[in-house]
């Protein structure tokens, strides 16, 4: 169940990043600064679900595999991955609790952490986000708009829950 949940949330996070780019100026600004070819590989636990994304031609593309990601994160266990991707632990808390290892530059993790914080501010209720962030970012549009765009993206097969 945890593995399935993490797998779904990883794909929702990717979809949310793309949709929030058009809804939230801070997300858009972060992407404007992404260097061409920046890529993230997120692995969860031992052989758990993965997410590989690549910034190319102004788009954040989900790809099957990344042989040499610019920034590679490995969450140390599946329970930690579950906590991180279900709003029970924020990125800063994950860092503070040594929940992941990272190969690459710390600056790229910081970019990702800011984006994940913004995604969580939209996807999770404040009662949850207040527990996992020292300062919850204000949403620039109603969270329902974000949900609607993400759901529509999955319904129209713009995003896929499967590989």
């Amino acid at each position: 169940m945890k593995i399935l949940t993490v797998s779904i949330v990883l794909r929702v996070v990717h979809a949310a990043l793309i949709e929030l780019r058009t809804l939230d100026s801070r997300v858009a600004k972060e992407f404007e600064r992404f260097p061409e070819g920046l890529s993230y590989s997120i692995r969860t636990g031992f052989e758990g679900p993965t997410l590989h994304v690549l910034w190319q031609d102004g788009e954040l593309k989900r790809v099957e595999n990344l042989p040499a990601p610019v920034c590679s994160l490995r969450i140390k266990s599946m329970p930690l991955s579950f906590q991180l991707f279900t709003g029970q632990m924020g990125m800063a808390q994950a860092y503070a609790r040594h929940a992941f290892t990272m190969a690459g530059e710390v600056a790229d993790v910081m970019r990702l952490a800011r984006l994940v914080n913004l995604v969580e501010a939209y996807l999770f209720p404040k009662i949850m986000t207040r527990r996992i962030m020292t300062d919850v970012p204000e949403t620039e549009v109603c969270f329902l708009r974000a949900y609607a765009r993400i759901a529509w993206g999955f319904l129209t097969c713009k995003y896929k829950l499967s590989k």
Partner: protein
Amino acid sequence: MVPYFEFQNAVKLLCGELSLERISIELEHLGASCPLVLSDAVLSKIGTLEQVTEAMQSEGITAGATFTDIPVDSSLAVVNRIAAYFREQGCDSIVAVGGGSVIDTAKGVRLVLSQDTDDILAISGVENLTRGKHIPFVVVPTTAGTGSECTGVAVIRNDANGVKMEFLSPFVEPDVAVIDPRMTMGLPPKATASTGMDALVHAIEACTCQQANPLSTAYGTAAIRMIAENVEKATRNGGDKKARFAMALASTMAGIAFSNSMVGAVHAIGHALGGVCHVPHAVAMTILLPHVMRYNLSHCAESYAALLPWLVGMDAALKTPAEQRAEATIAFIETLGKRLNTICGLPLTLSDAGVQKDAFAKVAEFAVNDGALIVNPRAASEDQVVEILNAAY
């Protein structure tokens, strides 16, 4: 209390008089006989380096090679060059004699060698490395501030973009650190004060950041007490052996504290100021500390209040009403800075340090990408970093 924490300090500490003379036997025990000695040109010129190499030689180990061309703000290129030199010279171990730049450079060299690579950039990351080949590694700090002799992090400048990069791994820690008071006796007053304040920042941020834990706080608070009692004494009278030794120990303890709980916004912004404006690290720390504390106050009044007894003593702290203790902690830091400024001219503002306001936007952009910011008790955007910089100007 934090729900989970990790704590490591695997460094053997040789503390006190005649410590230098024990380096050779430690190297021998580590299976080394041909060390590459790393230092900088100033320490070579004033004889500090010679003091160490003579002490080693007197006990049977001679440097296999010596490299002293390490700049104040060392870089990835310097690390790679020294690693190649180590291999050329057939050395088997490293002895680093110097301040933060020399020690962090040496840590980088050791990483390159132990991971069997040619480029440190290829192995950058957080807790991502396996142990690798063991290269015996001894450090002799010559300032009482960085605590780098006991930390699992190396901060090294990337000349390609001016960013100070952090390399975090438990395998960065040296095998042995030598805390010999002779090494800091000749430190000028301004350097004594600024490096002492650097140690204070390490201790305060270690005790108040999101990663603070009971063990790191034990080291951090003990360091705060020793610094509060001794930094002025050591600055006023460089020959005060007791104060010098206390400061050296406090710096080491603060290093152990922050190595196990990270730091915060003072360091994130300070690294950026170093990268963009070349402000010396310890000077940036001194200037930024009270301003960042004011910025953080709304989020960690309780933890700042808890530091007051360590700064002023329990009796004085108890005379301060509980709700005023956090503010009193910051006021003490400000007053300490002013007193040190009077004694030795320690810069207290960014304008004193020669920073131009037009650099603030770039500094803020770098600061929010610094790993130290993620565990700061209060989040900070680029605009908020600029506010802090303006307050410190």
